[in-house]
Structure formats: C-alpha cells, structure tokens
C-alpha cells in the first residue's frame, strides 16, 4: 500500500489542475517505514470510518430490513395459508412446514436473482459517485488517502455489506422459521439427514457462497460508480446488468457465453446441501468472481487515477 500513496500523490499532481490542488501530499518525503505504518494505520482507520458511515446510514438499514422481510413474508404466509402444493413455487418451499430451518434457504433462492443484486447494486453504485455527488470526494482525497486506497476501502466496505445482506436473509430466515415451525434434523437434497448443528453450518456456508457470488457484481458497480457523479445511474446500471446477465443465462442460444456470466453460479449454492457436499461450484464461482474483480477492479483503478475530481 505504501506505493499507492506516493503514486497516487504523483498521480494527483499530474492529473490536471483541479486534482492537483486537492492533493495534500505532493512533494512530501519521509522515511519509508514510518510511511508504511502510517499508511496501514491510515487505511484501517479509513476502512473503519467507511464502515461506520455505511452502517450509520438509515438507507443501509432500510435495505437490510427489506431483505429481512423476504423470509418473514415467506414464513408468515406459509404459517397462515398452509403448505404449498407439492412441486410448485420456489425450491425448498415444501419443506418449510416440516422443518422451519428451510425458511432461510427458501428466502435465499427467492432473493438471489433480484433483491440481493438490487440492494448490493445500491451500495456498490453509491461508492464513488455518491461521494462525488455530495461533493465530499475531494475532501476524502485531501486526507492522506490515495485514490487507489480509497477505491480499495470502498470495495472492502461493499464486500462487508454483501456479507451482511446474505447473513441477514439466512439468519432472519432461520430465526423466524425456528419461531413459527417445528425444527429438526435437516434433510439434504441427497435424502441424507444431518443434525441441526451441521445444518446451520451448511447454511452459513451458503451465506458465504452467495457473498462470494456478489463480489463480481460489486466490482462492476464500483467501476460504474467511478464513471459518473450521479449515483442513481450507477446503481440502476449495476442492477440492470445483473438482470440482463441472468436473462442471457437463460437463453440456450447464448450457451457459449454462459460460463462467462457473473450470474452463472448464483443458484449453485444448493451444491452445499448435497451429501457429500459438492465444492466444485464454490471453487468455479470463486474463480469467476475473482476474474470479474480483477477486470473491473483494474478498470476502476485506471478510471479513478485518470479522473478529474471536480467535486
């Protein structure tokens, strides 16, 4: 990270007059070790303050609340209306009346295609464009935060939100299921039954899987966010891309493209409910998302360091 500051400092100095003015570090030199400690400490405190800002916002809690409503709605509806006819509705719906723990998984199946990408798109699209629209981006860059470091911190905060969002769905689903339905050993897709404890561990693994699934889209959102000063544009574009990718994934004519879509393995988390669990899709998914992170991360970095920060 130490090079980030110096390079970003130089970058800012050269990136045109307005950016040059906001750079507070150009021309300052100090011993490398102190600089490194300062940078790490600075990055951590920046990350901490970024998280604090994110989770202090009412909007963040509204998004998480909306996600929490999905399992609550499912559980209450089934509690009131009774079992669904077999084979209809989202997967795992029929198992809820037998085992309330499945509320979280059913909610995850429902939330993954649209609600999760929507909420995460809001946060990812807001990262840079939100600061720019508030006019706070240049102040962030005045602080000894290089542009690349700011980008990294913003992305890390988005990743934390991804984890919070998926955990919200799984944890709220499990709790509401526990409250409203009988709970017992978990029947896996293979027909094997595991204890409640192992079932919960698997549900946490699913939350991890879905979190990883969303990282590629977060990188896309981060890049789009560097392109504009209108956060809504970046948010909408991110969510639309997620939907478009899923539509393309449903078209057999585009089969050659499917392995490259960042949505390809989104619903593959069911592989963790097999006995023995199949980890192939987890690995494939992680590799794919890492590819998106590298490509769109690099694009975002290039865009960020060449950007004229006017607000």
């Amino acid at each position, binding site marked *: 990270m130490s090079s980030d500051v110096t390079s970003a400092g130089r970058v800012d100095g050269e990136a045109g007059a307005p950016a040059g003015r906001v750079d507070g570090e150009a021309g300052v030199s100090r011993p490398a070790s102190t600089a490194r400690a300062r940078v790490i400490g600075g990055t951590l405190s920046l990350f901490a303050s970024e998280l604090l800002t994110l989770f202090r916002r009412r909007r963040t809690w509204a998004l998480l609340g909306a996600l929490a409503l999905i399992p609550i709605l499912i559980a209450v509806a089934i509690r009131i209306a009774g079992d669904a006819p*077999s084979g209809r509705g989202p997967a795992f719906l029929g198992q809820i009346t*037998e085992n309330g723990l499945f509320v979280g998984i059913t909610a995850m199946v429902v939330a993954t295609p649209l609600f999760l990408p929507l909420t995460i798109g809001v946060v990812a699209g807001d990262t840079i464009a939100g600061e720019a629209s508030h006019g706070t981006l240049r102040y962030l860059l005045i602080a000894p935060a290089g542009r690349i470091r700011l980008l990294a911190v913003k992305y890390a905060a988005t990743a934390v939100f991804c984890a919070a969002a998926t955990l919200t769905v799984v944890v709220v689903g499990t709790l509401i299921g526990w409250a409203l339905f009988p709970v017992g050993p978990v029947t896996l897709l293979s027909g094997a039954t595991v204890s409640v404890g192992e079932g919960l561990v698997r549900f946490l693994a699913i939350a991890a899987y879905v979190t990883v699934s969303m990282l590629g889209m977060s990188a896309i959102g981060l890049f789009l966010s560097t392109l504009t000063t209108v956060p809504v544009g970046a948010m909408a574009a991110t969510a639309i891309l997620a939907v478009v990718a899923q539509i393309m994934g449903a078209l057999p004519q585009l089969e050659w493209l499917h392995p490259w879509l960042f949505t390809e393995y989104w619903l593959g988390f069911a592989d963790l409910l097999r006995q023995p669990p199949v980890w192939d899709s987890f690995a494939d998914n992680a590799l794919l998302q890492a590819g998106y992170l590298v490509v769109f991360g690099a694009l975002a970095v290039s865009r960020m360091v060449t950007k004229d920060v006017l607000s």
Partner: protein
Amino acid sequence: MRAQHGSGASRRLSRWIPAIAAPIAIGVAVVVVPMQASAAVDLPDLTPAELLEFASASEVDALSGTIEQTSELGLPDLSGLTGTMGGGAGGDASSGGFGSGSGQGDSSGDGTARDAASATDLDDLISLATGTHTARVYLDGTNARLQVLDDLAERNVYLTDEGAWIYDSREQAATHVTVDRAALDALKAEASAQAEAHADEARDRLEAEFGTPLPTPEEVLDQALAKLDESTEVSVGTDARIAGREVYELVLEPRDADTLVGEISVSIDGDTGVALAASVTASGASEPAFSVAFTEVTFEAPDASVFAFTPPEGTAVTEHEVPVPTLAELEQRKAEHAAGTGEPSDRMPQPEVIGEGWSTVVVLPMAGAGAGATEGLDPEAAALLGTLTQPVDGGRILQTSLVTVLVTDDGRLLAGAVTAERLLDAAASGR
C-alpha cells in the same frame, strides 16, 4: 481526457494499461491452461483388438467421479417452457425420475405408475435429451450410487446388497426396489448348475463340429471383431486426455448408409482400461450429438457412508418388490415368446424388429391404438408432443439428429437410428 500536452496524454494512457492488461492476462490463461492440460498424449500403440482386450481385462471395481452428459439431438430446447427457476414444473408424485412416457402398461405392483404419460414424464425425457447434466458416481465392490446434480434439486439411485433406493428431492419421493434374495440365489444356483451341464454338452458338440479344441478368448474376440467389421469400421483414434488421465480412443464407424450414426467414440483409460468417455456423432456433423464423459475421477473406494440411505421423514416411499421367477417360468416365457403367444395384454407390448445392424428399426404397437396417436396422454403432454413432432404421410414423425421416431395413424410406433425415409419405408412395407 483533457490532457493539455503530449507527455501528459501518454501518461494518462499508460494508466489504462492495467485495465487493458487484466482481461488479456485472463484470456491468455483461459487459452493456455486447457492447452497444457491436453498437451500431446502418447500412449503405446495398440490395435483395436488389443485395445478391446485391454479394456475387457479391466479390474476396477471402485471409483468415484463426476460425469457430464451433453445432448444436442436437434430437439427444440423446451427447458425454458417446461422448467421454472428453482421449482419443478411437475404436478403429481412421480415414480422417481424414471418416466415411462409410453402410455399404458408396466403397472405391476408399482403404486405410482399411471395410466397415461403425464407432462412431468415427458419433461424428464426431454430434459435428458437436451442440454447438459452433471452427475457424480460412486462405486465400491458391492455398492453403487448415481447422484444427478440438478439445479436446486437432486436425483439419486443407491444400489446396495439390500436392494435399490431411488430418491427424488424435488418430489420428495423415494422408491425402494427389493429383490427376494433367497429366490434370486436359488435361481442363480439353478441356472449355473444347468449352464454347466449344458456347457459340457455344448463344448463336446462344438469340438466335434470344429474338430479342434474350443477357441481361446482372444480368438473369440477376433472372430467377434471380424463379424463386427462387416458392418462397422473399428479403429483406434488419437490419444487424448479425459479427466486429467491419458486415454485411448476407440472409434466405431458404421458402414451402413441408412443410419444417422456417423461415429461412436469411446475413450479408454490407458492405465486401468476403464471407459472414461463415450460420444455419438451424427453422420455429417462435427460435434457429438450425445456425449458422456468423466470430468473428474479417482479409483479409490469412496467412504461407505456415501452409500447409506434411509428415507427422510416426510418422504413418500413406494415399495416395489421385483418378483423373481423360477427357471421353469423363465423357460416357459421364452418358449411363449418364441411361439408368439402369451398374454400381451398384461405385459409390455412386444416389439418387432425390422432390419439388422445399424439400420435396425423397432416397431412397437402403441397401447390404446386408434386414430389419434396422442390419445391417452393428458392435454399438456399431447401439446408438447405436438410441438416436437411433424405431421407426415400416415402419422407424425419426431426427427432428431440421431434417432427418428414415427407414430403412425394406425397405432404403431417405429423408432430407429435411421433416416425418416427409411422409417416411412419400413412402416409401409413392414420390412
């Protein structure tokens, strides 16, 4: 980009290098990694006969691996219509993923078999014939398990000494197939005793006929190959790599012009002799119409817990005991079949075979024969059949790149790996 002077512009451009380099690096990795994986494989050369012998001598009885099956039969892909995201399109309980699809019959004790093929069964058949499926297989000496990995669902077949379990997670239904072991053992003992007695007699007769001792297994294989050579060109293809293992390729090419099959290729592991992949290519096509291959395989016995199955609570369990006939009953049945008698009403309709070799056509009298070939199906299934088949003179025809099926108006079903013309010809002439 509002750079005022040249050096500034070039520095700005240089900052886009990571953004350009990242996709290029990924692209190169995507191209290079598989190339290295399939880098030239050179196994010791074998003739087709040697390869077959090597494969048949294979003694692998334990493995676990992942299989991928792909079908491109040229059917319209109906998965978007018949399957929905996450949920099954089906309605009622199915008999565990093994749709019969062919109307009435085979309801011997199976509580869930229905009189008419439902749309669910057709869905299962169509889903098998289109798209890609992934499954895991586990084998040890006595047990076997096939685990079909569907989206958000799974179908399993567990085979153990105690019988077979078929479990479908989407339907939450399990079928338990058991065989009366005592009766089976008795049948085996009886049959082998009889076979031994017959074998001595047969060997004496054969030796008298040939005037020489019985041929060795290699000779038998050679003779079989010579016979096969009349209809099929057998050759050894290029060595390749399947699931990270070096394989031989055995290629079968029909000499028959009437058949739709262009080439059958079987990949045989160069180390163990196990078939690791097979594919069928239609004549004139470059890509296989049907292929099944291991993507990953190990030859170690899987953990015993993999084969354990007890139906979970809330599962509809169907018990199905397969009756074991005695040897006498079997012989009687065979005799009846040969004589063309017997009771066709309570058995599957007996198929009739026209032609031989690759252009064999199978004729099946359709249950509920009548003017409407789709009679006896529920409306949804009939509609589905309607979109799949085309009307021709005297019936409806289903044309895929490998198999052609003709349903005639007079209630016969003809199928074969042949062209539509050959099938219509067979329907008209009965030859």
